[in-house]
């Protein structure tokens, strides 16, 4: 039986494992953590203090017959087809999938580590989100600087989602008149993709959120409470909400030269095959594909890789489908693929309901039970159709 080794028990790793039949493949999932988290909910932990339980043991999410090993992989040798971890086991394989996601790294930006340790964020863990919530619920007024510290970040809509959630919270608490929200971004506008920006920009303006475009964070001075950008702009803050830069895996991958300068693994944008290898793949946030780092891309890439391993022809279209909570009970989705630009899809209450429902459907999605719903949905919201309907109007 062919051995499939999956490094990482996130959305990509689990969906891939569950898409292979354990009667046909010997599948092992290795992760250094025991728990899997529904990451989109960090937003509501940080800005609403949500106490929803969003973690489940990885082992409980895998089909019977799939092996889970708690181990931290330290080295992968693609030529030898072996991986090594801290348990001193040698893992050999016929196919390997690296699905290690991203790791937050505040250190390249001077001063950011201190701020990150003190204030947390709404992107990296339940603990960090709770840390931020504690600051938000005790906030009495002043300037809040909110944004991403690097252009490479998970989930492009989530940055602005944070600013929207924050504004809604302050408004409901009656703190709006005592607060300035400054949203900084390395991109030319509030939302990086122009068609979606047209949809959300009026909301940003209406809610009094000040946008600082082309603000690529260079240094943080937490004593004087000033952020400075590479472009030379500054923001004085009372409360900093900064999502740290995202980096790729720290695992040593041999041969060398298969990762970009941020350690993301260089892979084919259609097949996710790691450059030069037919039996090694990088799935989800861990790879360098020119698409958003989100759960939905990890999901769709995992399905394609599962098909390729089973000898079926398949290729990833670059499809993204990022839920975008615009607050006050409405949401939209950022939808595009490699060949079609983002559609200017308007926010509605129905889409907000769908985003909220996803928190429940998610666990079924990981096990593959929600596949028929997704097949229908992805066809229904095909970016070609959406652009035909909304882009011209």
């Amino acid at each position, binding site marked *: 039986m062919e051995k499939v080794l999956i490094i990482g028990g996130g959305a990509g790793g689990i969906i891939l494992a569950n898409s292979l039949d354990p009667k046909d493949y010997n599948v092992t999932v290795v992760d250094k953590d025991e728990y899997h988290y529904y990451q989109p909910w960090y937003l509501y932990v940080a800005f609403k203090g949500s106490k929803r339980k969003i973690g489940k043991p990885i082992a409980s999410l895998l089909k019977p017959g799939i092996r889970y090993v708690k181990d931290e992989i330290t080295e992968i040798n693609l030529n030898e087809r072996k991986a090594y971890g801290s348990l001193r086991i040698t893992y050999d394989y016929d196919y390997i999938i690296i699905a290690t996601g991203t790791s937050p790294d505040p250190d390249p930006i001077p001063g950011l580590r201190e701020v990150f340790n003190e204030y947390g964020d709404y992107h990296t863990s339940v603990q960090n989100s709770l840390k931020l919530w504690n600051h938000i619920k005790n906030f009495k007024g002043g300037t809040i600087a909110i944004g991403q510290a690097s*252009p490479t970040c998970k989930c492009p809509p989530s940055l602005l989602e944070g600013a929207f959630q924050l504004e809604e919270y302050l408004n409901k608490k009656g703190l709006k008149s005592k607060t300035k929200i400054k949203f900084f971004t390395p991109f030319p506008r509030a939302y990086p*993709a122009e068609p979606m920006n047209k949809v959300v920009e009026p909301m940003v303006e209406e809610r009094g959120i000040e946008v600082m475009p082309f603000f690529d964070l260079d240094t943080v001075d937490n004593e004087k409470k000033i952020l400075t950008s590479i472009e030379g702009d500054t923001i004085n803050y009372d409360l900093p909400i900064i999502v740290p830069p995202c980096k790729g895996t720290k695992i040593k991958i041999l041969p060398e030269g298969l990762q970009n300068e941020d350690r993301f693994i260089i892979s084919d944008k259609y097949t996710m095959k790691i450059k030069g290898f037919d039996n090694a793949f990088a799935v989800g946030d861990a790879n360098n594909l020119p698409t*958003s780092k989100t759960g939905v891309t990890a999901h769709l890439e995992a399905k394609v890789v599962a098909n390729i391993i089973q000898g079926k022809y398949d290729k990833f279209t670059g499809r993204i489908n990022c839920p975008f909570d615009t607050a006050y009970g409405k949401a939209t989705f950022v939808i595009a693929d490699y060949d079609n630009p983002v559609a200017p899809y308007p926010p509605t209450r129905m889409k907000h309901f769908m985003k909220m429902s996803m928190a429940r459907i998610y666990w079924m999605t990981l096990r593959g039970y929600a596949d028929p719903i997704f097949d229908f949905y992805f066809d229904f919201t095909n970016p070609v159709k959406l652009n035909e309907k909304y882009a011209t109007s």
Partner: protein
Amino acid sequence: MTDVKLIDSRGAACPGPITDLARAYRNSKVGDMLELWATDKGVKADTEAWAKKTGNEIVEIKEEPDKIIVKIKILKR
């Protein structure tokens, strides 16, 4: 001769080619030449606005059937 650093952003729609450009800019120095390849139509306006903001120079924007090429000279870093 200056090395030209190629940034291939073809296919990137969201967040888009500016992500790769901003990342390359962070790692660049004065005198570097960057060549950005993109398919996203917004790349022209965005790189022009970016160059204006950062004080760098767009040397050339070339439209080919399958991609748009933007050549940038780093004057300020």
